[in-house]
């Protein structure tokens, strides 16, 4: 069963910049609730005032969700970085995981900054890094 995977980045609108991290958490939480009903998975990163999000699911749900995002004025300079059909989900364990810079350890922050740079240059690699980060984060939570 193949899935559609969509990857985009955007900058937070200036008027919302002061509470960017909070908005990122809200968005991740709200979409996690909505996605669990719609079988959408993915992750949302917020780094240095930029959103970077992966959405996975069936074509209709991914496209409808992305269209909703495109109508959202909290985003600026929204860029579609990758849209492809993949053999399976990468983020099957997360309805919508969040990777917010402000909540991260120093090590994670560095990795997140790398993801941000990679996103526009090599989308697939950036997605893979986000997946790794989440796996590490979960392990950290388990051992803590």
């Amino acid at each position, binding site marked *: 069963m193949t899935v559609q995977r969509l990857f985009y980045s955007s900058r937070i609108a200036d008027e919302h910049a002061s509470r960017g991290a909070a908005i990122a958490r809200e968005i991740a939480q709200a979409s996690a609730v909505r996605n669990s009903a719609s079988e959408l998975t993915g992750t949302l990163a917020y780094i240095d005032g930029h959103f970077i999000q992966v959405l996975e699911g069936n074509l209709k749900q*991914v496209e409808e969700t992305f269209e909703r995002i495109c109508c959202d004025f909290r985003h600026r300079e929204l860029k579609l970085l990758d849209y492809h*059909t993949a053999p399976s989900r990468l983020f099957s364990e997360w309805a919508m995981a969040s990777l917010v810079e402000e909540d991260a350890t120093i090590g994670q922050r560095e990795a997140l900054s790398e993801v941000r740079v990679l996103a526009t240059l090599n989308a697939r690699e950036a997605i893979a890094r986000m997946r790794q980060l989440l796996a590490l984060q979960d392990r950290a939570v388990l051992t803590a």
Partner: protein
Amino acid sequence: MLVLLAALLCVVGSYVSIQLFRRTLQAGGGSRFHWCFLASVCAGSSIWGTHFIAMLGYQPGVPVTFDATLTIISVVIAIFGVGIGLFLSTLRNRWFGALCGGGTIGLAIAAMHYVGMFAYRADGIVGWLPNYVALSLACAVVFGALAIDRLRVHDHEGHPWTATLLLVVAIVMLHFVGMAAFTVTPIAGFGSGPQSEVFVAMASAIAMAALLIVGTGISTYLVEMRTRVDAQDRLHHIAMHDTLTGLQNRHAFNGKLRRLCQRLVKGGPPFALLMVDLDRFKPINDSLGHPFGDKVLKAVSARLQEAVRDNDMVARIGGDEFAVIAPGVDDPSVARLLAERIVEVLSRPFVISGQVADLGASVGITLAPADGKDAETLTQQVDIALYHAKNEGRGRHCFFDPSLTETLRERRLLEADLRRACMREEFEVYFQPILDTATREFAGAEALVRWHSPERGVVSPVLFIPVAEELGLVTTIGALVLERACAEAATWPDGMTVAVNVSPVQMMGGRLASTVAQALHKSGLEPGRLEIEITETALVTDDELALRALEEVRALGVKISLDDFGTGYSSLSYLHRFPIDRIKIDASFVNQVPHDPGSASIVRAIAQLGESLQMEVTAEGIETDAQYSYVAEHGCRHMQGFLFSRPVDAATLARLFGTHEKNRSVA
């Protein structure tokens, strides 16, 4: 009390009956029969009910009973009589219809009344006054006919009150005049005892039944009315809305704009008018198909509605053109914010059915009443602003400004002059010689077009070629230049080449190869001495078409060179895909060498690239000796620039080539 009830039943019954009569007259085919049935049942029962209830209230001073059979017959007479009358009312001739139809209805009322009166058994001596009977009949016929006539000529939406009133008059007159004709003399010995209970119960039941029938008629009428209003609302909605996107359409937009302008005159609120035009919609529609284009348009409308404020009107007024009216906006910064939101939201990608489409939009803005007060002016102004936004490079907004009108006027003049220039062939071909650094002799020349306008003097190609491309004139101009350049080159010494620029529009026109072949044939120039110069923009628009055009030209034996190399996008990939013989390094890099390391390395890289791909390399814009030496040193064989020669006319070039080229050398 009973008389009042009878009066009420008479008025309400007439009101409903007239409405039903009207529907009967309006209806056609089978539904006319149904309406007629309903109307006659309703009218018959209310006429009869009025009579019956009034009779219950009538106190003849003697005991009274009703004959059941005759009473029922009187109802049937009323219903059938009205039904026949209604059918006759639909006769085409006005007088015939009114007299026969209305008259029959009047007679039906009368017949019902008198049959009803025979059913009325008073215990006394009953007498009839013939004059009153005749008068009552005349009244019923005349008023009935008048009612139908009024109803037939009634042609507006409101209720036909006159006809209703006439029907009431017909019923009431008949009853009272009829009752005046009726006399009862009590017979001595039969006391005026109370009415029996059975009689009252039966009479009340009959009256109730009559009321129920009239009630049914009323509700039927109301339900039908509601359905009709709904249908009208739906029709109105269809007329004012775009079926694809559900947005309001051009018709609705024009109406709203006109209304706002009318209110403006009376000191109404200001508003902003924005015109939105999608960039790149047509190629997407053409390449990905109309069903896809339709989905994109739906998404565009949804996004537009997100971008505007709640009270703003968004209308689709053309294939890919939308208008926004923002009431209450007189502050340019508010209008700007709105336009920015629209440009932003439409610049985002559209991901639909697994495909990705990048559109973008241009927005023109005008403010009322600051810029104009009438719909026509505002529409013109917003179009000018939109045109300007598109001309400035799309994906942006532009406010209307009176100076734009002037810009547009100048542009129109230029267009008109250019059209005339094409007819009069006001173009001349100039040549800039190309030097071969290996032999230090001229190897050929690049043909350049000049426009000698009698009104404007010499106009630069930079100014008029974009206009010519937009107007489609560039094909004519290009063919002219090609022909003259070939004719000129045929007179040059053997081996000298001529390079001619070809616009992307000309290349995609599909007739490039035949134009080239014709120019070669006319001039007798060897195909190998002609080079076609194209730019990268020609290759990115539609690479399949470009490839085909270039291969056709190449098949003639003509060479192809890529102009302005290095300024476009991923230039490298084109070199592999397209049949290119030569690359020309853009003057902007050459100008910077040798002092600018970046440009120097680009020039070196291009020269090496040419060598490895076995393409010739020409450097353009050589102005200094230092540039010459640097470029020559790094492997560019051919050069052109002011250092050797400016573009010159054909005669000068012939002198350069014919007499001086052997002596000419560069230090």
